[in-house]
């Protein structure tokens, strides 16, 4: 019976991952209203979350439509798409996620003990980490003029983040999806003949292990998302290899859910909407963590396999030359999705976010600075609420 729930969760997770904007948190809201609970619903939700963590990179890579956890992948993934390596990009995020889940399952008991003993200290250093990330955005630029532009972007993005607090999807679609695609319209069409085979350097497993640290941070520190963690880690890294970055992002995304579950059991505190719903549906017994771990590892296998198969199918759609029509269709699709999920407010937020995203491209500064729209509100939350 539990296997059926696990497979059902994996099936829905696969579909949810392919629909940009449909986050597991949305499904969790529906789940919270149902009378189901116990091990079965735990198996269902964990399986859904983990599988989605694998497949949600597919729309991010192929149509440039970001999810809440994947927008950082769009620039590197788009680069690989243009080189005909979209399939490799999916294999990289899959390898990262798979490594994270396997290593995470071994590290869970240690992680569980660590957060139980150090939760207060970890929360106390969060604002310092966030401030350091903002400083790194500014310090990362070479000239005074660019540093001033970065400060302006931080203020603008932070204002948007505060003004459109519940509009994460429209904001990230604007910054990272539509802005880049719109800008690419003025570029010449490229031959996007995609390679259907991928060769992965086993060394990227090391980067996946670094990603686990990011996933652990996300699962402990409230308000910090996978992308924020990836951005912060990337600021401190010297090597900016696209392949390593994608593997790391895949690892962060998967280990985030993995460790969120352990955090929920250890601290009885939910760090995302899914865990919040699950918290009310779960029995905190001795074997709950063990069962959850097995389910997540199993689902990781399903998710990885599905991501590889679905990515190959997606390539068939891209066998022809990618033209400007494709980019226009992608923009229209993203507008429809934002309108459908977030309404007029979402569309308004998206327009503002697209403008800022385009400004960063034209100014030649890093678009990840737009992440300030997530970082600053979280920082305010720590400064004014927790301290």
């Amino acid at each position: 019976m539990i296997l059926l729930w696990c497979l059902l969760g994996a099936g829905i997770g696969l579909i949810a991952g392919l629909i940009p904007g449909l986050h597991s948190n949305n499904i969790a809201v529906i789940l919270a209203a149902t009378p189901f609970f116990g091990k079965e619903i735990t198996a269902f939700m964990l399986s859904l979350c983990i599988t989605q963590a694998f497949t949600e990179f597919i729309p991010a890579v192929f149509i440039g439509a970001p999810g809440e956890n994947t927008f950082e992948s769009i620039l590197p993934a788009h680069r690989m798409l243009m080189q005909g390596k979209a399939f490799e990009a999916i294999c990289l995020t899959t390898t990262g996620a798979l490594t994270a889940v396997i290593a995470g399952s071994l590290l869970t008991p240690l992680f569980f003990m660590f957060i139980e003993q150090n939760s207060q200290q970890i929360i106390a250093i969060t604002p310092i980490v966030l401030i350091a990330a903002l400083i790194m955005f500014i310090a990362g630029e070479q000239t005074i003029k660019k540093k001033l532009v970065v400060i302006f972007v931080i203020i603008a993005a932070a204002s948007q983040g505060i003004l459109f607090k519940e509009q994460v999807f429209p904001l990230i679609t604007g910054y990272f999806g539509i802005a880049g695609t719109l800008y690419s319209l003025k570029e010449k069409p490229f031959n996007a003949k995609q390679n259907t085979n991928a060769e992965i350097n086993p060394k990227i497993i090391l980067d996946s292990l670094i990603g686990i640290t990011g996933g652990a941070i996300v699962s402990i520190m409230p308000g910090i998302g996978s992308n924020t963690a990836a951005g912060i880690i990337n600021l401190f890294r010297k090597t900016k290899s696209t392949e390593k970055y994608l593997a790391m992002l895949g690892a962060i995304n998967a280990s985030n859910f993995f460790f969120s579950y352990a955090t929920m059991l250890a601290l009885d505190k939910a760090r995302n909407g899914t865990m919040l719903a699950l918290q009310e549906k779960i029995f905190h017994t001795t074997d709950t963590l063990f069962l959850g771990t097995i389910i997540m590892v199993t689902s990781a296998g399903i998710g990885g396999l599905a991501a590889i198969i679905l990515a190959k199918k997606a390539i068939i759609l891209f066998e022809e030359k990618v033209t400007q029509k494709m980019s226009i269709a992608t923009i229209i699709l993203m507008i429809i999705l934002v309108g459908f999920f977030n309404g007029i407010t979402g569309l308004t937020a998206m327009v503002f976010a697209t403008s800022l995203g385009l400004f960063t491209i034209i100014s030649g500064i890093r678009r990840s600075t737009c992440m300030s729209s997530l970082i600053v509100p979280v920082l305010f939350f720590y400064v004014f609420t927790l301290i």
Partner: protein
Amino acid sequence: MNDKTLSKICLTITLTGMLFLALTYKPEFEETTVSNLIQKENSKGIIFGKIESIIKTGQTTIFILNDSNKVLIYYPKTIEIEENDFVKVYAENNSKEITEEKYSSKKKELMLFAYKVIKE
């Protein structure tokens, strides 16, 4: 490592996990009665009965459940229930610890720990 190797690894993980799940999983709660639960320490089960009386203390709820046998139940959360309501309780008989630690000043009485209480 190529994509085919990666697929094989994924398949191996899936099959191993499923096998492990099938071999190790056993339902945690099965329907039982108050008398069965109170007889065996550390046993778990789903019991169904009528609420005789309720004591609410801050964030916790303690109530007496009757399914032809009466038992005191400790639920570490608040819940909207009233006397004479019928409820389904996912309970465990680890009450010795609860009684001694939290209610040492009160009369020591067998108390079941409730993981979940559902109003029927």
